């Protein structure tokens, strides 16, 4: 089943199509990874899925309805987003930032309810940020800051969470910290997660469903074992690669063949 999907969606900026007529399904309750070379339209697709971009043709459909026909506040109660470059207001504390995730649930004259407070505390707890809740976001480490933003999206309390490169700019330990967090959120709270990632091995380890894109089209979609084959990886990324089972998890890992100086 999938609540969120695209139907022959052509998506782009101005009159430049970047994604050319794709049909994408986001399986409910699973982690979906969107992978592909730079400029293939991964982030463009993600932005359209969360209605930041309107398809030039075709549509993005949420629960059977065109997402742009649903009031934006209602969409915000169903889909949360971690953008690529969010801006933390100067001096904001972790808890205040997380509280802003409650925006779509608030009403004008009754801004803060007990359920808001509960959602914020639980988001802080899930991201292990409870001890840091009074810290100023600007002063956190990169990994902590990313967790704070994820906590904000969590407090939004949406069944679907979309993340645009949640691990980029983080060191390896913080990358896995974020991925483990997403894994827990999916396992324990059965949230549907869609993430754009660059690292294929991480996508293979953490995702149930992989969408591989190339030049604005979906080159392959399915479970990691079906998508990360030597044939598909070399087609999508223009690179000769060998695929082995990950010695720890058994999921595919992609190793460029040819050695230094000869990867292409």
């Amino acid at each position, binding site marked *: 089943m999938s609540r969120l999907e695209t139907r022959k969606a052509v998506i782009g900026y*101005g009159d430049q199509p970047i994604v050319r007529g794709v049909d994408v399904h986001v399986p409910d309750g699973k982690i979906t990874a969107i992978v592909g070379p730079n400029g293939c339209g991964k982030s463009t697709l993600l*932005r359209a899925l*969360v*209605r*930041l971009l309107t398809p030039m043709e075709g549509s993005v459909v949420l629960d059977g309805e065109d997402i742009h026909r649903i009031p*934006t*506040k*209602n*969409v*915000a*109660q169903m*889909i*949360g*987003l971690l*953008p*690529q*470059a*969010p*801006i*933390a*207001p*100067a*001096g*904001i*504390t972790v*808890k*205040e*930032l997380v*509280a*802003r*995730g409650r*925006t*779509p649930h*608030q009403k*004008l*004259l*009754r*801004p*803060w*309810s007990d359920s*808001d*407070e509960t959602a*914020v505390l639980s988001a802080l707890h899930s991201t292990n940020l409870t001890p840091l809740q009074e810290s100023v976001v600007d002063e956190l480490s990169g990994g902590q800051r990313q967790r704070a933003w994820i906590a904000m999206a969590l407090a*939004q309390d949406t069944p679907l969470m979309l993340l645009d490169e949640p691990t980029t700019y983080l060191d390896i330990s913080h990358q896995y910290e974020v991925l483990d967090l997403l894994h827990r959120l999916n396992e324990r709270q059965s949230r549907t997660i869609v993430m754009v990632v660059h690292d294929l091995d991480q996508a293979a380890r953490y995702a149930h469903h992989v969408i591989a894109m190339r030049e604005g089209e979906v080159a392959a979609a399915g479970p990691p074992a079906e998508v990360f084959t030597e044939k598909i990886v070399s087609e999508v990324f223009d690179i000769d690669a060998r695929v082995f089972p990950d010695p720890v998890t058994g999921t595919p890992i992609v190793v460029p063949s040819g050695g230094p100086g000869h990867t292409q």
Partner: protein
Amino acid sequence: MRSLRIGPFGITTHRRTFVVGLVLLGALLSLLVFALVVGKANIGFLDSLRAAIGISVGSPGDFIVGQVRAPRALTTILVGGMLGVSGAILQSLTRNPLASPDFIGISAGAGTGAVLTMWLTSGTSLWVTAAGAAVGGLTAAFLMLALSWRRGIVPLRLILTGIGIGFVAQAATQYTLTRMDVHDAGAALAWLVGSTTGSTWTHVTVAAAVLAVLLPIILWHARALRTMEMGDDTAKALGIHVSRSRAILAVCSVLLAAAATAVTGPIGFIALVAPALVARITRGPGVTLIPAALLGAVLLLAADQASQLMPATLQFPVGIFTAVVGAPYLLWLVWRSSRGGPV
């Protein structure tokens, strides 16, 4: 989140921001009493207050307090508040402390609109002048957007364009002055200096009416404003109508600055300083509109009182006074940014 509940309504606010707001309100009320009671004529403390709320205390108190001090103080408070809110909105929308209506040509555009209106109508009605100022301010804002638009808005380009438009607007104002007859030109010149001297209840009414219409609209979008500070994508994902809220808030900000300009003439630096100073004092995240309004009012009323207390030969209009006090702040901002700090 520290929140505050008053009756059925909840106000989510930073506790420190709330305390700062209360302190500013106290300061404003004290200054108001001072403005009503202290002056060249000695009316007496209680008589001044009675006269201010319309209880007759006989001559000359009724006139001096009821027709001179009270309307002047209230006009000053309202204009200061309007400038504070206007600046807070612009600075928040552009994420740049240099964006204030007096700095980016909006007040200058409103000034041109007002002077043109004075010329065409011989300055008969403040309401008409205010409408002219609104048209001038909106025109300046529209030109600024149109000229700085290159597939989006970069705040610095917007501000530099605004400064340029300000110069053009001032030239247009000067030219209009040369076309006016001497009497009207004199009145317009006195107005252009930025002064609360001679404020009447009509000035109070115009300022209060504009605030009464715009402030609820602005507060309605205050949450959108704070959310947009996290970037358009985040705000949209949180269910904010970003383009619509931004347009409404920008127009409200321009109209506030234009109306303030129509009422007292251009008064500089309040819109620049008040929101930035509030952010510094509250140390809270994001824009705080009501404290910015209160501080704008406090600053302008204090400046107005200070300029009145000067010896007669040194008295100058409050617009000049705020420039004398505000210019060093601007220089400090520039100095700090040149040393690598955030502008």
